[in-house]
């Protein structure tokens, strides 16, 4: 008699089949050995699978990054916003005249630095262009910085996410052709669409667009980078 011992273990035998199997188990040593063998197999594979090394610390850190901190209190928020406005005004006076003379369309880069270190890229961009640059880490969407670059009137970061390459290009709003831009919202925030590219506007009249990769990826990169672009006022 053939008994499907996996079905027996899974509880998917009919009551009649199960009764036959139970009877066989009482009388047939080979049947008991079969069932024991299956159970040992499942136990062995479970133990082997669960014994694999898991990078717990890294995964916990990823989880913390995926779930941003809770909103700050109204008072803290008010103070922070007040400070940001004051800083923007001061910076507007001090560095406004030499902030990004980004009147040219994107052209061949003057220089490129390959690095995944956001601070290194930012320092390099600022020291070479003598202009403020945001600290784009691109980590909020699980991406990795590949390089930073600049040219006449523009700065850009290349990043990689899910084996896809994306570019984040920043220019003065007046330097972009905004005639064919449409508006959309993602996660409650407004974005601009220019062809396939996703953009947003931030301080100092700057506009950034994300290109490359997938449509969903562009939205995610834009969402993550948007949070970081206001830091331009802290230069």
């Amino acid at each position, binding site marked *: 008699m053939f008994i499907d011992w996996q079905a027996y273990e899974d509880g998917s035998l009919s009551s009649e089949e199960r009764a036959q199997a139970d009877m066989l188990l009482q009388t047939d040593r080979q049947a008991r050995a*079969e069932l024991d*063998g299956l159970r040992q197999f499942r136990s062995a594979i479970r133990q082997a699978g669960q014994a694999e090394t898991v990078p717990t610390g890294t995964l916990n850190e990823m989880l913390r990054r995926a779930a941003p901190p809770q909103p700050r209190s109204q008072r803290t928020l008010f103070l922070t916003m007040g400070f940001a406005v004051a800083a923007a005004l001061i910076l507007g006076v001090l560095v406004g005249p030499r902030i990004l003379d980004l009147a040219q369309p994107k052209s061949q880069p003057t220089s490129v630095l390959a690095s995944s270190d956001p601070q290194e890229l930012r320092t390099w961009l600022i020291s070479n262009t003598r202009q403020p640059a945001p600290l784009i880490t691109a980590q909020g969407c699980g991406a990795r910085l590949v390089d930073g670059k600049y040219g006449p009137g523009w700065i850009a970061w290349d990043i990689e996410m899910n084996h896809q390459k994306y570019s984040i290009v920043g220019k003065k709003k007046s330097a972009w052709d905004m005639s064919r831009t449409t508006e959309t919202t993602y996660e409650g925030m407004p974005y601009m669409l220019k062809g396939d590219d996703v953009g947003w506007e931030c301080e100092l009249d700057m506009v950034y667009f994300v290109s490359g990769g997938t449509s969903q990826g562009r939205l995610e990169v834009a969402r993550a980078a948007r949070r970081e672009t206001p830091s331009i006022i802290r230069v």
Partner: protein
Amino acid sequence: MNWFSRPRDFEKSVQPELAVLYRVARRLGGNAEQAEDLVQTTLIKAYQAWERFDGRHLRSWLIRILRNEFLMNVRSARPELSLDEPEAPEVSQDPFWSDLAWKIQADQLLEELEKLPETYRVVIQLCDVEQLSYEEAAEAMDCPVGTIRSRLFRARALLRDRLTGVISLTEDNV
């Protein structure tokens, strides 16, 4: 769900599932770094969709996101690759669970498991390693319960055959 409590709830709920997600990511294929990338993307997607989660079978929900991400990556990286159900490999019909010497080392078991087609090694990972019920595994794999049952039957038999050397398949024809 109160938005203000969302991050804490998410972190608290998902933290116990991290190891499972990582192991399933490894089983889907790729090295440790790729598995970490896949888990990270899954966590971001899960957080974005957290308010839409119905509260049932968190583990299945997370694995489903992870698997969808994996399939998206595979499709974009290798568009020529078929993601259809693999042709069912031939397995021995004779019952011989008892014939196996269950003193096989864990690394041997995992090595042979890795050689199975993705569909089969994942169903073993979900049902035998992570001990999901058929219903949970079906939800994670986005397929009927009956499909999980038949895949698991075949996957175990295939692994058993590999371990006993009844059939010798090369990596190329699996």
